[in-house]
Structures are given as C-alpha cells and as structure tokens.
C-alpha cells in the first residue's frame, strides 16, 4: 500500500512537474472536519484560495457526521491514515494532547506572544506550557435575542441593559391565561440549553464571583456570589414568574414560535432563526450586572496539526494553518457560516462590530471567558440537577449549590487525577 502510494505520489509529482514545470515537489495534505453544510462550503472556498496561493500543495478535505467524528479521528491518526490538519472542539484539547494525536504549533511560526496579542483572549485556553496547540478560525459567544414584535406590543423600546432591567422587561412580556398558566414567557430558561454557560461565566462573575480557579480544575462557585447568581436565576421563575423552565419543551422552540420575549443563545442560532419566516427579532449584548460588569461565555472549534504530519507535509500543514487563521479566512467564515472571527482585527472592523446581528456577539467576545471542561455533558448535568432540586424538591439555594459544587469537583478530580 505504502509503495503504491509512493508510486502514485511520484507519478503525480512527475506529471505535475511536467505540466507546471514547478521545481517544488507536490504535497497533498488531508484536512478533516465534521459535516455541517455551511462549514464545508466555507472550507472549500478557503482551500481554493490556499491552493491558488501555494502551488504544489493540495488539500483534501474529508468530513464525517458529528456523531462518528471522535471515533474516526482516534482510529485513523495512530494508524497513520488520518488527517494532517484536524478540526476539534476546544473542550477535547486535553484528551487529544494526552492521546498524542496533535502536536504543538512551532513558536517561530505561531509565536505565543503574537497569538496572545492578535486573538481574542479566550483562545488562551488552547495554550499549554507556554505553547499553542490549536487555533480557531471562528468563535461563538452568547447574546440576548429578543422578539421585536412582542417588544413593540408591550411598548418596550430598548432591550434590557442590566439584570434588573431584564426582570422588569420580562414582566411586561409575560402573559398568562385565566387559570394563571403561563402562555408566553418574558425570557426563556433551561439549564439544558445555553443557560448553564450563562450561569457559569456570566451570572457568577457578574455577581462578583468566579466559577472556577484559573486552571479550571477547582470549583469555586460555592460562594456568596454563586448563591446570589443561583438566587437570581431561580427567582426569574419562582419569585417573578416571568419564565417557566422547559416552557414549550425547548427554549429555542418557544422563541421561534413567538411565545418568548427574550432568549439567551449562541451565535450559531442565527442561521436557524433567519430561516423562520414572520419572526422579527433583534440581538443585544447580554445584560450587564447592576454595577455594569459584563461577562460572556465563548466556545469554538479549533484546528490543529496532527502527529501524523511529518516532513514536507508538516511544513505544508503549517502553511495551511496560517492561512485558515488569517484575517481573510475569518471574514469568509463569518460571511459563509455566520460564526464570529477569532481576532479583534477582523471582528472589530467598523462593519462587523456594528452589524445589528453579529455586533452584539462580537462585542461580547472581548469580555468572554471559555470554560475548560473536563466533561461538558456531566458538568452541565450537575447544574441541571442543581436547579431541578430547588425547583422540584424545594431545596434551599445554598444547599443545592453546595451539592452541585461537590459533585462537579468530583468530576474534575477524577479527570485531573491521571
């Protein structure tokens, strides 16, 4: 197989050398990402641009359904069959490094201090022991979606600027039937959707606390600030009655159906909301704390060079990495996929930062934090259960928070033990 490949490569090299009479040897590198229509289209555009700039290098893109992605990567790279450049969720970075699937980016091409300076701060989660292992093309953050029609109906002119305004605005948007059942919520809630991010990196910090220590291996939200944040969050339903957790099954469903005044969600929701006909919506930055503190959550998919890439493939892979993390690539990604640029130089251009839809998300990036998860779904479940205990079992806030902190610490301990 290897010899056959070698032979094929040699033939290719020879024939293209004849055709293009280029001196450089042809290299083909492989790029893998999970399948999502717009992402594939954007990457095809980027590959075309890259190949035009770098004659002699071809990039072969392969994509898989999201469900199979992790397994395929894990099986292919050690077998020497997989990608040279791979896309992965930022939360998987530790696992990928531990499994020796990706290699650090060389400091001469991707100087850590330049990356620190050029990118939005949350990409620092990709730095280990002073070197970067992966870099994103695009990032995601949270913002407040609001239903313009319901705002007009209730005579609200501005989206809420702070957390107190949020309650007042939500009260005006809530509707109930004769029996007192909610038929329209002021704001959607549900820890199962994006609220767990809003709670961790948004509310807790806005109430003066921190969700974790700097290394994200110790839970630190079992504090007064944490309790205040949980109190605020659960009060929306229990005290103010402006929401119902699980209303219309899923928060985004309630918002899409026009039965929710406000909805906190990620930038990836923009596409599907644009597709809803007759829904008039706007976007605002997440409400600040009463003292003006702003905080947001950001997540992203990153690209990394795998341990499979060696020699000239490694060189080509680095060139490709530079290309897909360039300003031009980020603009293409924003235009095609709708995901936010990872660098202020692109994100904060006049046009992008003032875009009515992307703008609030991009502004949110400058004060966004990225949770380093050991196990995102289990850590989310802890918060889901925390709210369920106060909701269904009427457990006091402090007690539920303490149980959650202990449970989450256990997950982190197990993960960082090895």
């Amino acid at each position, binding site marked *: 197989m290897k010899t056959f490949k070698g032979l094929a490569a040699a033939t290719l090299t020879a024939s293209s050398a004849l055709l293009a009479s280029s001196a450089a040897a042809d290299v083909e590198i492989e790029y893998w990402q999970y399948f999502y229509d717009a992402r594939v289209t954007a990457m095809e555009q980027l590959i075309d641009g890259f190949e035009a700039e770098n004659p002699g290098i071809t990039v072969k893109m392969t994509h898989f359904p999201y469900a199979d992605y992790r397994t395929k990567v*894990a099986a292919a790279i050690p077998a020497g069959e997989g990608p040279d450049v791979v896309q992965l969720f930022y939360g998987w970075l530790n696992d990928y490094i531990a*499994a020796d699937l990706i290699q650090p980016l060389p400091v001469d091409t991707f100087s850590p201090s330049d990356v620190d300076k050029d990118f939005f701060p949350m990409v620092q989660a990709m730095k280990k022991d002073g070197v970067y292992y992966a870099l994103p093309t695009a990032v995601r953050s949270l913002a407040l979606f609001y239903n313009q029609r319901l705002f007009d109906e209730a005579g609200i002119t501005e989206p809420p600027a702070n957390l107190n305004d949020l309650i007042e605005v939500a009260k005006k948007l809530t509707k109930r*039937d004769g*029996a007192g059942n909610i038929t329209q919520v002021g704001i959607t809630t*549900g820890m199962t959707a994006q609220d767990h991010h809003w709670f961790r990196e948004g509310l807790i910090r806005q109430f003066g606390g921190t969700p974790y220590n700097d290394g994200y291996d110790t839970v630190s939200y079992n504090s007064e600030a944490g309790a205040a944040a949980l109190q605020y969050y659960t009060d929306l339903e229990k005290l103010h009655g402006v929401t*119902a957790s699980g209303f*219309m099954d899923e928060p985004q469903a309630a918002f899409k159906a026009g039965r929710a005044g406000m909805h906190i969600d990620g930038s990836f929701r923009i596409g599907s909301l644009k597709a809803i006909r007759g829904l008039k919506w706007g976007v605002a930055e997440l409400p600040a704390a009463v003292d003006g503190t702003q905080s947001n959550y950001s997540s992203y998919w990153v690209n990394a060079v795998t341990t499979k890439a060696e020699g000239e493939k490694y060189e080509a892979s680095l060139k490709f990495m530079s290309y897909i993390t360039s300003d031009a690539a980020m603009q293409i990604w924003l235009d095609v996929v709708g995901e936010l640029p990872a660098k202020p130089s692109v994100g904060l251009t006049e046009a992008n930062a003032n875009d009515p839809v992307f703008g609030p998300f991009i502004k949110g990036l400058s004060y966004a934090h990225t949770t380093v998860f050991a196990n995102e*779904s289990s850590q989310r479940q802890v918060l889901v259960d925390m709210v369920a205990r106060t909701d269904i*079992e009427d457990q006091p806030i402090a007690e539920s928070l303490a149980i959650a902190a202990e449970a989450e610490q256990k997950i982190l301990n197990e993960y960082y033990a*090895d």
Partner: protein
Amino acid sequence: MNLYRNLTIKQKQIVWAWTFLAVPVVFYSVIRFYPTATAILISFQDWNLLGARTWAGFDNYIKLWNDPVFWKVFRNTFAYLLIGTPVSLVLSFVIAYHLDKVRFLHGFMRMMYFLPFMTSAVAMAWVWRWFYQAVPIGLFNNILASFGIAQIEFLNSTTNALPAVLAPAVWAGLGFQVIIFMAGIRAIPTSYYEAARIDGVGWWVVLTQITLPLLRPTIVFIVVFSSIGFLRIFDHVFNMTTNNPGGPLNATKPLVLMIYDTAFNSFNMGYAAAQTVVLFTILMIVSLIQLRLLRSN
C-alpha cells in the same frame, strides 16, 4: 484422507455435524461472543476512545458500586420491569380475551391494536412528549386547563415522570402481546369449552379453570419477552427526555441510557463497559430464572 477413513461412523457424523455447524459457530463467535468478550475486557480498563487502553483492575466496578446514580438507575430499571410487565400482561390479556369474542370488524380492531407495535418508537415518543407538555402546547394539560383543572407536571417531576414514560412503552408493546394471547386462546381446543357449557359452569370458572391454565406457556413466553424488553428500555426514555436525558434528577434514567451517556457523552468506555456487563448479568439471571420456570411445566 486416511485419517477420515479410519474414523467410526459416529465420529464421522460428528465431523460432518461440526462442518455444517461451522458457519453459524463462526458467525456467532464474530458477531456475538467476540464483542461480548471485548466488552468484558474493556470493563477492566480505562479508555476514552482516543488514547491507549490502560488496565484499571476492578476500579470501574468499585466506582459503579459507590455511584449513587447507578443505584438510582438500578431501581428505575427494575421499576420499569416490575410495573411494566404485569400491567402490560394484564392489559393485553383483557384486551385479547374480549377481542376474541368480538365478531364485528374483528380484523380491523385487531389491526388497530397492532398498529402501535409497528410504529417507530422514536416518532411515538416524540408525539407523547408533546402530549405531556405544559400549557399552551401540551394536549393533556390543555384539556385539563379547559376544564379549569390545575396542570399536571408529567415529565418535569420526580414522581410522575417514570410512569409517564412507561405508559407509551406499555401501549406500544401491547399489540404484539395481544396477538400472541389471541393465538394462545384460539389454540385451546373448543371441546373443553363445550364440556364446560354442558356442565353449566359460569364464565369465571371457565376462565380460571380452563383458559388461564392452558395459556401458561403463552403467559411465560410473554413474561420473558416483555421483561427483557423493559429491562432494556431506551428509545422511549431517551426521546422523551432528550433535553435532560433520564428525566429530572435521573427520575426516569434506565441502565441502557446510563451506558449510552457514559460511553458517548463522557467517552468513558471502561466504565460504560462495566455497566454493560452488569446489565448483561441481570438479563441473563432474569432469563435463566424464567426459563427454569418454563421447564418445570
């Protein structure tokens, strides 16, 4: 060739028997035994799908024993079994018993009962999920609200969620059991009933002295079949609670869902394999007990 010729007829029969058995034996080894053995092996290892597998000894089992979620899930799984099996058995018998006596549109009625069994569990679960929602979209709660009755939390409750998820699962399996029962009822020779009628005994005696005793093999079959089904319940639970798989505070989480979650959300393959081995053992014990009961008849 000489070797073969020297064999006795008995030995030759054995050779041929194994030759013909080779295909299913290979098939079974590759499809059933190899994965089972691998699962048992992985249950003693740590593996996150990415790196190498490392030996963990009994760590996964010790962790399982000390995991409160596992015991909650264990209780749920048996709750599905102990509520689901008798309820579906009694319901399907009552339906089959009466359906057997219906002459008008008999085939159509039978089809109506069988239809849910043929429907995709996923589609069914999502429709029921919608039925259970709160006002303004939930069918049941909308009906209650229109009579001015307070809403019921079906799925967002630690007490109601499990029965609420179980109900459609029972309903979906009913059609199959009804058909089996009807076949069993029809297999009872009519001469017994004629003799009973000549003796002038009532329907209750006929039911308890003739029908039920003669239906024992059918009943045992349905009990075995449905208990395995309830022990392995997954699709209904998963699809009705995708937002929060396993219901609020794990109220509806069965063992299979826990395995799925551990394996494909937490990527903790060793721990998931240990759970699988436990499930496998439970299924085997339950089946062996039930087969033993069957044999004594």
